[in-house]
C-alpha cells in the first residue's frame, strides 16, 4: 500500500509568503480586524514589561483566554506560515513554545548580527527566516539552499539565532532562538517556581484568582497575571467558577 505524506494544513509557497510578509494593504479588512487569537496575543503582549526586550507570549497562555484550543493552534500555524509570528521552543519544559512577532524577531536578529560584525549575513538571515518558518532547521538546508559556510553558522550561533538541537551522525538540526532570550528565561523560571510555591503552601491548595493576583512575586519583573495565565493554560491548576470569581486549584 502506498501512502501519501501531506500535511493537514497546506503550507504556503515561498513566493506567497514573501509577498504576504512585505505587502501591507490598508484597504484589506481581514488585516485590520484581528482574530480572537491575535487579540489574545496582543492582550498578553501588553502585560509584558518593556525592560525584557521584545514581548514574548507563551502558546499555552492563550488557552486560558480562549476556550477552543484546536482553533488557537490552527490559527497560530497559519500566522506562522504568513510570517507574522515566530515560534521558538523554550527548554523550560517540553511543551513550552514562545510566540514572538516576526518584525520584533527580525529587528532583534538584525541588531544582534550587526553588533557582532555579521553585517554581510543580515540579508541572508532574513531570507532564511522567511523560508524556514518552523521551529527547527537542518544543516543540509543551511549549507545547500543558502550556501552558508561553517563560519557563518557559528556566527549565527554566537549571536543567538540558532541553538544546536541534536547531532545525528553528519546531519545536524538547529533550533531557532531569540538573541538575548536568556534574561526572559531566567526571569520566567523564577516567577513560575515562585507562583507554584505560593500554590503549594496553601492549606487546601486552592485560592481565588483575585486573591492570588494581589500577592507579590519575588525575583521577577514579569507581572503576576502573566504567570496566572501560564499556570491555567498549562493545566497545572484547574480554574473553577464560583460566585466570587474563578477559584484556582492545584492539580496533582
Amino acid at each position: 500500500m502506498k501512502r501519501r505524506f501531506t500535511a493537514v494544513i497546506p503550507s504556503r509557497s515561498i513566493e506567497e509568503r514573501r509577498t504576504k510578509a512585505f505587502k501591507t494593504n490598508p484597504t484589506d479588512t481581514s488585516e485590520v480586524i484581528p482574530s480572537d487569537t491575535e487579540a489574545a496575543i496582543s492582550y498578553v503582549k501588553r502585560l509584558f514589561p518593556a525592560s525584557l526586550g521584545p514581548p514574548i507570549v507563551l502558546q499555552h497562555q492563550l488557552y486560558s483566554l480562549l476556550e477552543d484550543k484546536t482553533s488557537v493552534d490552527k490559527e497560530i500555524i497559519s500566522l506562522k506560515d504568513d510570517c507574522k509570528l515566530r515560534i521558538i521552543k523554550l527548554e523550560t519544559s517540553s511543551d513550552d513554545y514562545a510566540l514572538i512577532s516576526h518584525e520584533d524577531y527580525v529587528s532583534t536578529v538584525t541588531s544582534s548580527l550587526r553588533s557582532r560584525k555579521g553585517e554581510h549575513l543580515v540579508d541572508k538571515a532574513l531570507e532564511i527566516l522567511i523560508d524556514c518558518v518552523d521551529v527547527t532547521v537542518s544543516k543540509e538546508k543551511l549549507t545547500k539552499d543558502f550556501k552558508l559556510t561553517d563560519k557563518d553558522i557559528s556566527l549565527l550561533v554566537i549571536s543567538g539565532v540558532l541553538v544546536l538541537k541534536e547531532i545525528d551522525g553528519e546531519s545536524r538540526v538547529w533550533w531557532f532562538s531569540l538573541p538575548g532570550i536568556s534574561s526572559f528565561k531566567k526571569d520566567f523560571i523564577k516567577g513560575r517556581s515562585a507562583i507554584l510555591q505560593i500554590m503549594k503552601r496553601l492549606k487546601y491548595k486552592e485560592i481565588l484568582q483575585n486573591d492570588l493576583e494581589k500577592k507579590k512575586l519575588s525575583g521577577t519583573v514579569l507581572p503576576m497575571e502573566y504567570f496566572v495565565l501560564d499556570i491555567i493554560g498549562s493545566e497545572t491548576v484547574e480554574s473553577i467558577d464560583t460566585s466570587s470569581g474563578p477559584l484556582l486549584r492545584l492539580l496533582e
Partner: protein
Amino acid sequence: MIQLLRDRRAGLEEEWTLPKVYATHKWTQLSLSRNREFERSHDNGITSMQLDHTSQRYLLSGTTDGSIFIQDTRYQVGVARQTCPTVAFNRGSTTPSSHTHSISELKWYPHDTGIFTSSSMDKTLRIWDTNEMCVVENFKMSTPIYTHDLAKAIKHTLTAVGTKDGIVTICDMNSGSSSHILKRHKKPVMTVQWSPSDEYTLATGSQDNQILFWDIRKTRCPLVSLDQHNGSQGKNSTAHNGYVLGLQFTTDGLFLISSGSDQRLRLWDVSSTSNMLINYGRIPHSFKNQTHHFSLTPPSLSFTPHLLVPSHSDVSIYELFTGRNVSKLKGHYSSVTSIDVNSNDIEVYTGSTDNTVLIWTAVNSIELNTESKLSRQSVIYNDTWSDED
C-alpha cells in the same frame, strides 16, 4: 428538539438526524445508573474489560491476580433494581490453566462469543472456550505481554501480541503457533491495534515514543512511523513526547487516536498518516507501564463521535473532532483502568483499581417514568393477604 421534530415531520430533515442528535445529547448527560449494577465478584483491581461485539451482552473483565469474569449485562424487563450476574469465572492461580500473574488484556473473538483470548504478565496468551471455561490453546512468549489484539478480518485469524522486549509476535489461532514477528520497536510495546478497514494493516505503539504502521505481509520494515510535527522537526519521528500507551481506530478506520504518558491525546489521519493537530488539553493520568484504554462512542448512536478517556478516578468525555471537553464522569474511588461502551444502548461500563465495575447511563425522563410506573403497579398487584388470616 421540538424544532427538529417539526422539521422531521415536514420532511426537511433526514430520518436519521433526530435519533442521532438525541443520542449525542445523551452522551453529555451520562451519570451513574440508578437501578442497575454489577454483581460484586472482583477481589482485585480490574485491568482490562471488553464487551462482546456480536450481541453486546457479555462483559469480560480481568483482574490483577489473573482472574477472569464474564458478566451478563442484559436488561431485565420489569425488574426495578437489577444486578448483572456473573455467569462464568476463572480465579487466578486456582487451576493449572488459569493465569498466575496480572491480566494485561482480554479480547472477545470478534465473530462470536464462543472464544475469548487473554494475555497476562505471566508471559502467556491463552485462548479460551467460553462455554467450557477452559483453555484450548496456550502461546508462550519469552517476556511479559503488555497487550494483544485479535484481527477483525475474515480472511485470517491472526492475533498480534506486544511484549516487553519490543517485539510484536503474530500468532495464528488456526495453526496454534506464531507465524512471524515484527521487530523495530526498541522498547516495550504497549499497544497494538488492527485496522478495522484494512485487514493487513496493524498499528503498534511503544515506550520508544513511536507509533508504527505495519503491513503484516511485509514484515521487514514498518510502512510508516507517525510524526507529531508532520515532518517539520528533523528526521527522528516521534508520535508523543512520552511513551505511547493507547491506540484506537475509529470504526470506519479513517482516523487513529493515540494516548501517551505525556498526558496528551492525538488524532491521526490514517490515509495521509498526519497529525490532525487537535488539542484535547492535558489529560492527567498516572499510567506508565500499563496500557491506557479509552473508548469511542459508536457512530450509530452519535452525531459526532465522542471520546471517553479515563483520567485518574474520573472519565473525561471529549468531542473527537474539536477537542472540546464535554463532561466528566466522577464515581470511582481510584484510578479507572478500562472502559467499554454498549452500542445497543447508551450505556458505559468502567472498571477501576477499586475492584468495581460501574454502569453509566444517560439520565432521561423516560427511565424515571417507568420506574415510578413500576412502583405504582407493584402497589396495585401487591398481595395484601396474610398467611395468618
